[in-house]
């Protein structure tokens, strides 16, 4: 579904991604692991059309989408959920969700998706008139995910959804992500710091180091790899 071929991205003269190739097939949950500064967020931003690719291709269902404006990419159903602090603080929860459905014209579909999202996140329903800036970290993260779901994603890219959350909240976020994947059948590209969980749920995983993909395998195989265990699982 998504094929990235020899992608190169740079900020000025600093090259952030060298020759990155990876793919996500329909129905997969692919995890991207890597330490801070490895280029994970850069990769997501480039897929979303926020950063420019210097070389290489990004193919979505066979069509080149690299360097398309972000609204064109979003229209294809490629939805990125940024970390929770990137909600719109001075918009209400309801307005944030409405922005999630910005590109959609099917009012009925949006209304029924909104009901589903409120079932998944009852807290957001309670707080829908509240400004998003007054939400707790966990609630803001849930809002960010809910906002992404309202875009009717074909591919949902989650950027460190558990970052900075207390363990209890992290567990809740994990449950929601698994629910989205298993019950809604949405294809997911997951960037996550908690390697243990992220490898367990992944159908396949990639490891990104210094702007290069260094390993690719099934989640289980990478979790069993001694190098991965040492670097990411703390063995």
């Amino acid at each position, binding site marked *: 579904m998504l094929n990235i071929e020899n992608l190169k991205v740079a900020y000025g003269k600093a090259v952030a991604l060298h020759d990155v190739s990876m793919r996500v097939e329909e129905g997969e949950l692919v995890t991207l692991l890597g330490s801070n500064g490895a280029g994970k967020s850069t990769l997501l931003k480039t897929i*979303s*059309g*926020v950063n420019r690719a210097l070389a290489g291709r990004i193919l979505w269902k066979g069509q080149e989408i690299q360097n398309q*404006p*972000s*609204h064109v990419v*979003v*229209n294809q159903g490629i*939805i*990125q*959920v*940024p970390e929770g602090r*990137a*909600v*719109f*603080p*001075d*918009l209400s929860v309801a*307005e944030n969700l*409405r*922005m*999630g459905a*910005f*590109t959609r014209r099917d009012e009925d579909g949006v209304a029924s998706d909104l009901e589903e999202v409120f079932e998944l996140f009852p807290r957001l329903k309670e707080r829908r008139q509240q400004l998003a800036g007054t939400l707790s970290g966990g609630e803001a993260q849930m809002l960010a995910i809910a*906002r992404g779901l309202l*875009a009717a994603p074909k591919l949902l890219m989650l950027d460190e959804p558990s970052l900075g959350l207390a363990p209890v909240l992290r567990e809740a976020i994990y449950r929601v992500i698994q629910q989205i994947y298993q019950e809604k059948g949405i294809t997911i590209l997951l960037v996550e710091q908690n390697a243990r969980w992220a490898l367990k749920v992944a159908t396949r995983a990639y490891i990104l180091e210094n702007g290069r993909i260094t390993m690719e395998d099934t989640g289980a195989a990478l979790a069993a790899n001694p190098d991965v265990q040492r670097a990411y699982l703390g063995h």
Partner: protein
Amino acid sequence: MVPVMDSLFLQQVLNGLITGSVYSLIAIGLTMIFGVMKISNFAQGDYSMVGAYTAVFVMAWVGGWLGWVGSVLAAAAVVGLLGVVTERLVFRPLMTRWTDIDMIMVSIGLFILLENLAQLFFGATPRMIDDPFGGRTINLGVASTSLLRLFCFVFAGVAIACLELFLNRSRMGVAIRATSQNRFAAQLMGIDINQVYRLTFGVGALLAGVGGVLYGTLFAIYPMMGALPTLKAFAVTILGGMGNIRGAIWGGLILGVAEALGGNYIAMEYKQAIGFFIIILVLLVKPSGLFGRKEGA
């Protein structure tokens, strides 16, 4: 003890609110453009100047109160379009490559250009808009004012109410607010950022144009008239918090009343200085403005 409730005081408050509502209108455009695009547009008052000249022409053509209302609408259309054109031709090509300071210089260049074009085409002679109500005044009990000034206040209020409605209820209005709060996240929602820029500049200029008709109704119209409203609009936005629309509304009213009272109780000569005194005070005490969030919050 100061006779706080005497009629002179209330009269000055009323005068201040009327002028202040026009300041608010011009400042809202400035603060919107800053909030969404981070551009400090020093040509904002010159959009008002263009609006005022639009009114001069419409009034010469139609006249009467119909002409006055018509010139408000015409100024909205002309200056709104001017805003869209300058955004596309002047600001957008430079935005990704140039720094904020460069953009300020560009907007100053635009303001010099607009002033000199006006001088070239309209001449330096100051013009006045005829009072369509023939100078009729209205007594509000505690204070009185001309019907025309009251109309200015009402029109400023109506324009602000329309803007609030647009920003809170319409899809693109909410998208403008979203973009000013987090541009990256707005892009991820599928919002076309360039469309938001175009619309923001158009609406921001439109408000300045309408404000210009009202300003030109209260004061004289001449090619260099834009400088003062620009500076007042900056005073108002700093007072209310850069990028904060509600802050600009209240800031305008506060500045208007402060000027009227200062002009009356301190000295008329210091009236124009009060805005700048307020800027310094706000920057010293609460740099994020009365309604502003802390930086980075």
